[in-house]
């Protein structure tokens, strides 16, 4: 019965994440971005938050990272490192007009999901004797994510006027979205942890994470060679 409840909440979360876009910005948003001129702090805030909540690759990575983290302090640390990472490259990327192919960035992000699934299964401990520092990994993932955001925003060629304010709005929006996504994932996983099924299905969950990571990796890579 308890397990059923859990499955139900997972399904609800998946439904809530319906209509997701991997790192994309959907068409309506795109119309807004390309038509916008000047300062638009709040709209950019919203776009940032929406981006985080509808990006399935990011949500999957979040599930992987949070899976075995249970202290609030640790979770907070994770958020901080991720924030530092993506803020640096988002601001730097857009202001320095640096664009990296978003397929490649998304492929790397997909690999980070595989990495975390593998790590959760104990792969690094078994094969390399030690686990890579999760903080460093999250920071590096954040850096790549920021580049992904920067390239996506640049593709839209919006106005340079008010760019910095809009960028900061977008960045804070990403934080908001991140926080909401985190709260949801944390809620579900910490509830699940109280049931024996958590450890029973932890291998399956992490294998599925890896499978999703491999799938997304192939998808982005083919997209890259196809474009």
């Amino acid at each position, binding site marked *: 019965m308890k397990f059923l409840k859990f499955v139900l909440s997972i399904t609800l979360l998946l439904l809530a994440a319906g209509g997701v876009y991997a790192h994309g910005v959907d068409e309506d948003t795109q119309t807004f971005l390309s038509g916008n001129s000047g300062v638009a702090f709040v709209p950019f805030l919203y776009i940032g938050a929406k981006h985080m909540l509808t990006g399935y690759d990011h949500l999957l990575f979040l599930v992987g990272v949070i899976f*075995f*983290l249970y202290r609030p302090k*640790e979770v907070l640390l994770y958020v901080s490192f991720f924030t530092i990472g993506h803020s640096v490259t988002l601001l730097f990327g857009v202001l320095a007009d640096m664009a990296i192919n978003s397929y490649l960035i998304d492929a790397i992000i997909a690999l980070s999901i*595989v990495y975390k699934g*593998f790590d959760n299964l104990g792969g690094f401990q078994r094969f390399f004797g030690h686990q890579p520092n999760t903080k460093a990994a999250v920071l590096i993932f954040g850096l790549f994510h920021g580049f992904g955001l920067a390239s996506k925003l640049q593709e839209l060629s919006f106005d340079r006027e008010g760019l910095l304010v809009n960028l900061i709005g977008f960045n804070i929006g990403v934080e908001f979205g991140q926080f909401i996504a985190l709260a949801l994932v944390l809620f579900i996983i910490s509830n699940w942890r109280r049931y024996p099924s958590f450890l029973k299905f932890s*291998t399956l969950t992490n294998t599925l994470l*890896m*499978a999703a990571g491999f*799938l997304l990796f192939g*998808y982005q890579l083919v997209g890259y060679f196809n474009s």
Partner: protein
Amino acid sequence: MAELAHKILDKKSIINQVAIALLVGGIILISAVLPAEYGIDPLGIGKLTGFSKLYVKDVKTAASGSSQPHKTLLLENVGSGPEVPVPSAVNDPAPATQLEQRADDISVLVPAGKGLEYKVNMLKYGTLRYEWITDSGELYFDFHGEVKGNSNYFDSYTIAYSNNMVGSLVAPFEGPHGWYFKNNSVQDITVKLRLKGQYLLKQ
């Protein structure tokens, strides 16, 4: 970071799990995602399951969507150009009585990749209100008038890309007035026209 204490798998199981993950991810990629997203179907599974159909649909909407870049329209595109002399009939006086007021609903099929004209005959200073909308996608159009008895000269009132247009016209001279529609997409487009004013349908 401190993690929840949990058992970790032995080497063999980890290799197994990675293999399973690769297999599952790979199968979904080849059988569903690639056929649906890119139309790539190496094993024909996409065709068998119907995932490939998603891709074809995608291309169609992209072709008829407004996201395609259009050729830039210039002032030089307006009318028949400076080398065509303006016929003197342009300066003829307006008739004492206009054509009778009428209204029509008309469907015009513009085949994929083709262009065609739809016009009505009007007298000088006759009035027309119009509305048209396509069933899907955009057309290039040139809303223009020709002087009666002279098919070389024409003047453009509006040239644009759209799926929908409304407006009114006072004919500046006697002759056929209407639209040249060009369908640049890969599927046929039907234009539904509504006309109201002083004109005669062309036979």
